[in-house]
C-alpha cells in the first residue's frame, strides 16, 4: 500500500469544487492519460489511463466510482479498480477528497501489482506522487 497526501487550489468556492470533483466526466480527464470510456451511472464510470514511458506505455482499464459521499463535510472517496490491459497486474486506489473554499486536499491509498510494481515501492511512490501532483495542477483549472 502506497499512501500520499497532496493539496490543490482552485480559487473557487467549496460548492463549485464539490460539484466539479463529483462530475467524473470532468474529473477523470484531469489525470494525464486518463479518459472516460463510458459513464455507467451518475457516480460510476468505466475509465482507462495510459501511462507513457517514452516509446512504451502501460494502459490500466477499470472503474472509478464514488464510494463515499458526505455532502455536509464535502468529503468524498473515489474508488479506482483497474487492471493492466497488457499484463497480470492491477492498480487500485481509494482517493479521498476534502474540499473547502479555494481548493482542498487529497489522500491517496493505492495498491499496485504486476510489472509496474516490479520497479519497487520507492519508484511507484515517486511516479504516483508526480502523477497526482500533475493532477492537482489540472484541478486548479477544473
Amino acid at each position: 500500500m502506497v499512501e500520499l497526501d497532496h493539496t490543490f487550489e482552485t480559487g473557487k468556492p467549496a460548492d463549485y469544487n464539490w460539484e466539479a470533483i463529483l462530475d467524473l466526466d470532468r474529473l477523470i480527464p484531469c489525470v494525464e492519460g486518463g479518459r472516460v470510456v463510458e459513464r455507467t451511472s451518475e457516480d460510476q464510470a468505466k475509465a482507462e489511463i495510459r501511462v507513457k514511458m517514452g516509446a512504451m506505455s502501460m494502459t490500466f482499464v477499470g472503474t472509478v466510482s464514488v464510494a463515499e459521499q458526505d455532502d455536509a463535510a464535502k468529503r468524498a472517496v473515489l474508488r479506482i479498480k483497474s487492471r493492466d490491459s497488457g499484463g497480470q497486474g492491477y492498480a487500485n486506489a481509494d482517493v479521498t477528497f476534502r474540499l473547502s473554499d479555494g481548493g482542498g486536499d487529497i489522500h491517496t491509498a493505492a495498491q499496485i501489482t504486476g510489472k509496474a510494481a516490479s520497479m519497487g515501492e520507492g519508484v511507484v511512490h515517486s511516479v504516483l506522487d508526480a502523477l497526482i501532483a500533475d493532477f492537482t495542477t489540472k484541478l486548479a483549472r477544473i
Partner: protein
Amino acid sequence: MAAVVGPDSGTLTVKTGKGGAAAKAGHNLVIEVTSWRGSFDDGSITLTADSGSLRVRSGSGGMSPLGDEEKAGIAQTIDEEVLKGGSIEFRSTRVERAGGTLAVEGDLELLGTTRPIAFDLTVDDGGRVTGRAIVKQTNWGIKPYSALFGTLKVADDVEVLIDAQLPTEGDRDG
C-alpha cells in the same frame, strides 16, 4: 587532400543513460547515426550528421527488453520531439597531434546552437580513428527527454563515439 569517412567506413554511435526516481523503468540506449560524413585534413576536422538518421540498436536495463517496435518508436521520438530535424555540425578550431593522439578543440552546432567542445581522437598506424566526446545536452539548449511525469529522464550527458577507417592515400578525395 581530405580523408573522408562515413557509414561505409565506420560507425558514429550515441550512448544515452537515464536518471530520475523511476530510472529503473528506462533503458540505456545505444543509438547509431546512419547518415554522417567526417573529413580529416591536415590540422582540420569536420563532421556533419543527419539528425533524422538516428536508429536505436540496443537498450539495456528497463522493465522489459526493447523490441523492434519500441526501438523504432524511440527513434521516432528522438526525431520528432528532441532533434526535430535540426543541424548537427562540428568544425575544429585546433588540432594538436601527440604521437597517435589528436587533441581536438572546435565548435559543435546542435539544432542551431554553437558551443565549444574538446575531445581526443586516437589514430593507429593502420589509419583507424577512434574517439569519444561527451555532449551535455543542456549546454546546447536541449531539454533532456523525460517521461513518467518527469520521474524518468535521459541523462544530460550523452556519449558520442566514432570508430572509422581512414581511406588509404590512393582512395582519398581531392
